[in-house]
């Protein structure tokens, strides 16, 4: 597949890598507060980010290196069905617009750092809060692992990943270095590091996409030729298509909707949201974030270009890096690879911070050390963010890559099961805490079992679409699981209410959900009052 090390590309890649590393360490001083030793500061950047920084931060963690590698890879392999990522990211923003400002307000009022904090406060149930925390951590780990897979793909194509025959240590050394750097600056700078680096990442990615989307089609003879080549390939292979047939449409729609619902339940999207300065910032962002969806759509088309360019790889993940190397001059290949590599570091950092916040707040503090001080919380969070990354590294090095991808798929199904507790809780207190817990359990079990039971391509397990019981269409398993989950929750709530089962204590009030910075009648842009009081209760 590759012949030796691509020296020029590697030099450019290393240059950018060094630049962002320096930025990562300097980030600790950027917009710093007097007291860096509380979790608001390290884990939410002091909750001080305005519209543009939030935009970069959210974009930075929702559109990851893995997205940039995997979406075109799916198109390369199967055609139209891989394009569901575009409607999925279109649907995310109306959802964020509707739900997250309420979460921002109530979290800001009560000093919540994680979704579990909110669930515990709203339903007065530590069990439910624990379920949400564990789901979040479980779903995030393989996601981080996939970021490392993205870096690995780039390193492989550059020829520094080593062949199959080299010693494992030499082979994985570049990845270990990248990983060490990431771990070090996340530890020292917290959320400020990825926020700052996201500027570089997005600039690079925009440049690469703009060039790729103009330069490659011209070289390949226009979109007409590209799509006819792809069409030929799919017809010959007897799999995949340019437009989905009638039987694939339910799957397409439910995948888009289910993934959209899941995306903003992930701890890292919540972290990025809560770090913004006001609820207005979040709403304003939903009007400019779609710029990324456009970018994603264009990127997806690269999958077809890889087919037309005659890229042949066994591992679909390598299709796009290989396309870049075949098409671009070496120095620009270096820039493109740096974009993907840095695109992996930013989300990996945010995700590990989010998972660490969950552990510290909702497992360590709630169950192990209730009297932990703010300083201790921050210390534990920093350590856990390291552990989470080491776990992800072991995942990538120790197991087959398809395992990481399978778990990421499962993670999406899992995280979706926290939807009734979180979003339901944002609007109503009607659901009973025990019913929510039961619904969650049913959704988790059904989703895991069904995914395990469904073949995926050549594999025997872990497909993500299966028959939806009752309507005879193929659909996203996560979607079926969430419907089941909601049904169980509603029925049990009715039963438990009839039995007068004891309700938890709700520490929030209706007004908390609409409060804004500087509300009422004060300036809009005042910094939120929480900065000095983490977990103010």
């Amino acid at each position, binding site marked *: 597949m590759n012949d030796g090390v691509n020296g020029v590309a590697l030099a450019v890649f290393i240059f950018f890598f060094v630049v962002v590393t320096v930025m990562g360490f300097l980030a600790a001083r950027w917009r710093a507060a007097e007291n860096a030793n509380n979790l608001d500061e390290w884990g939410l950047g002091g909750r001080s980010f305005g519209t543009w920084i939030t935009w970069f931060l959210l974009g930075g963690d929702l559109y990851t290196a893995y997205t940039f590698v995997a979406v075109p890879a799916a198109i390369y392999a199967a055609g*139209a069905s891989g*394009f569901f990522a*575009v*409607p999925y990211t*279109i*649907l995310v*923003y*109306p959802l964020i*617009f*509707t739900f997250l400002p309420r979460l921002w307000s109530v979290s800001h009022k009560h000093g919540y750092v994680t979704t579990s904090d909110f669930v515990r406060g709203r339903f007065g149930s530590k069990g439910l809060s624990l379920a949400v925390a564990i789901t979040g951590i479980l779903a995030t780990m393989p996601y981080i692992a996939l970021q490392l897979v993205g870096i690995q793909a780039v390193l492989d194509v550059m020829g520094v990943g080593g062949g199959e025959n080299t010693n494992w240590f030499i082979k994985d050394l570049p990845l270990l270095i990248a990983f060490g750097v990431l771990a070090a600056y996340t530890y020292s700078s917290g959320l400020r590091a990825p926020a700052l680096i996201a500027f570089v990442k997005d600039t690079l990615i925009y440049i690469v996409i703009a060039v790729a989307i103009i330069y490659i089609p011209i070289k390949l003879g*226009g*979109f*007409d*030729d*590209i*799509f006819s080549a792809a069409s030929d390939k799919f017809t010959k292979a007897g799999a995949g298509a*340019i*437009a*989905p*047939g*009638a039987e694939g*449409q*339910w799957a*397409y*729609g439910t995948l*888009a*909707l289910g993934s959209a619902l899941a995306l903003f339940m992930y701890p890292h999207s919540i972290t990025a949201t809560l770090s913004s300065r006001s609820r*207005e910032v979040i*709403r*304003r962002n*939903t*009007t*400019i974030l*779609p*710029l990324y*969806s*456009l970018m994603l*759509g*264009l990127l997806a*088309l690269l999958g077809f270009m890889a087919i037309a360019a005659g890229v042949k790889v066994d591992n679909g993940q390598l299709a796009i890096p290989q396309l870049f190397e075949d098409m671009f001059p070496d120095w620009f290949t270096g820039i493109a690879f740096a974009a993907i590599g840095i695109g992996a570091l930013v989300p990996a950092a945010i995700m590990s911070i989010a998972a660490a916040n969950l552990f510290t707040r909702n497992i360590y503090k709630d169950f192990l050390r209730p009297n932990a001080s703010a300083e201790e919380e921050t210390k534990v969070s920093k350590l856990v963010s390291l552990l989470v990354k080491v776990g992800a590294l072991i995942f990538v090095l120790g197991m087959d890559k398809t395992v990481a991808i399978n778990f990421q798929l499962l993670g999406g199904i899992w995280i979706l099961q926290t939807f009734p507790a979180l979003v339901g809780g944002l609007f109503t207190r009607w659901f009973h805490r025990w019913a929510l817990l039961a619904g969650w359990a049913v959704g988790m079990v059904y989703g895991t079992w069904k995914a395990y039971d469904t073949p995926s391509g050549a594999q025997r397990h872990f497909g993500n679409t299966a028959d939806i019981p009752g309507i005879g269409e193929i659909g996203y398993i996560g979607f079926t699981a969430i419907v089941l989950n909601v049904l169980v929750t509603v029925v049990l709530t009715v039963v438990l209410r009839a039995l007068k089962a004891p309700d938890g204590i709700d520490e929030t*009030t*209706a*007004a908390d959900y609409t*409060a804004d910075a500087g*509300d*009422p*009648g004060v300036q809009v842009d005042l910094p939120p009052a929480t900065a000095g009081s983490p977990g103010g209760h």
Partner: protein
Amino acid sequence: MSDTSTAPGRRPVVTPPRVLAALCLIAPFVGMLWVGSYAKVEPTFIGIPFFYWYQMLWVPVSAALTSVAYVLVRREQRARKGGDGA
């Protein structure tokens, strides 16, 4: 802020601007989940099949709709605050 600052004579929960904002937010769901309406190759645009350019067209359209919803909701909020007698 105290928990119950409900001023007398509050505006109703459902108001025309809110309904309009809701419609703006729901429209992308109707457009995108009705897959049958766009699962076809023709007409192509500069060689790109309908399926792809149509969905990408929805990106700016939905962004515009969300912006409209944003303006409507903000105006509504200001009106509510004004109604409190500030």
